[in-house]
C-alpha cells in the first residue's frame, strides 16, 4: 500500500485518532481505579451506606 505524497497527513490523522482514543480509555480506567480505591478506604474506616451495604459493594 503506497500512500503517495500526502502519506504524512494520512498517517498523522490515524496516529492522532488512535492516541486520543487510547488516552480516553486510559483516563477512564484510571478514574475507575481511583474511585474504587477511595471507596475501599472509606469502607475500611467503617462507613456504611444508608442501604446497609458496604461501600465497595455494587
Amino acid at each position: 500500500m503506497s500512500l503517495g505524497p500526502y502519506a504524512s497527513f494520512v498517517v498523522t490523522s490515524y496516529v492522532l485518532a488512535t492516541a486520543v482514543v487510547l488516552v480516553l480509555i486510559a483516563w477512564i480506567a484510571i478514574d475507575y481505579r481511583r474511585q474504587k480505591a477511595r471507596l475501599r478506604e472509606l469502607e475500611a474506616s467503617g462507613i456504611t451506606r444508608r442501604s446497609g451495604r458496604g461501600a465497595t459493594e455494587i
Partner: protein
Amino acid sequence: MTLIDLANPTKFLTLTARVLPWLAALTAILLLVGLYQSAMAPDDYQQGSTVKIMFVHVPNAWLSMFVWGVMSLAALGTLVWRHPLADVAAKAAAPIGAAFTFLALVTGSLWGRPMWGTYWEWDARLTSVLILFLMYLGLIALWRAVEDPSRAARAAAILTLVGALNLPIIKFSVDWWNTLHQPASVMRMGGSALDRAFLIPLLVMAVAFSLLFVTLHLAAMRNEILRRRVRSLQMMQASQRSA
C-alpha cells in the same frame, strides 16, 4: 429488567458490569475490521490517498454532533424528570464528546492542507464546529467549577439545550453558505453519492466509533456514579464525626 429498573443507579451498575465486556469486545473487532477495510480502500481519482482521512474524519464529525444530542436528551431528563442518572449521563458524555470534536477538527485540518492548501479557514462549517468544541470545553469547565453536582447539572442542562441550537447550524452550514467544505454526500435526500468502495469502510468505521462511544460512555457513567457515592460517603463521615 425494564427501563425503569435501569434508572436505578445500583441496577445500572449491575447491568453494565455484565454488558460492558461484550460491548468492548465487539467495538474492538469492528474497529479492526474498519481499519483493515480503510487500508484496503482504493485511492480516490481526485484526492489520492488522502481520502483515507475520511474514514476517521467523518465518524468523528458525526459523533461530535451525536454526543451533544445525547447530552441534550439527558438535559431533558435532568430538567423534566429530575433524574440523577440523567445528570450522570450528561456529565460523563462531555469529555468524550470534546475528544471526538477535537479529532474531527484536527483530522479535518490535516485533510484541508492537501485539499484546500490551508490548515484552517474561517468558514461557516469549520467555525461552527470550533464553537461546538468551545462549548464542550465551557461545559466541562462548568462541571468542574461547581462543587455541588445537582446544582451543576441543572445549569449544564440549560446550557446544553441552548447549545443544541448550534447542531442544525453545523449540519446545514454547507447548504446555507457557500463554503470550502463539501456538502453532505452520505446522508442526504435521494441516496448516497459515494462509491461503494468508500461507503462500506466509512459505514463500518462509523458504527465502530459509535460503539466506542457507547462503551466509553457507559464506563464513564459508572465512574461518575462511584464518584458520587464517594462524595456522599465522605459527607456522612463528616457529619458522623460531628455527632
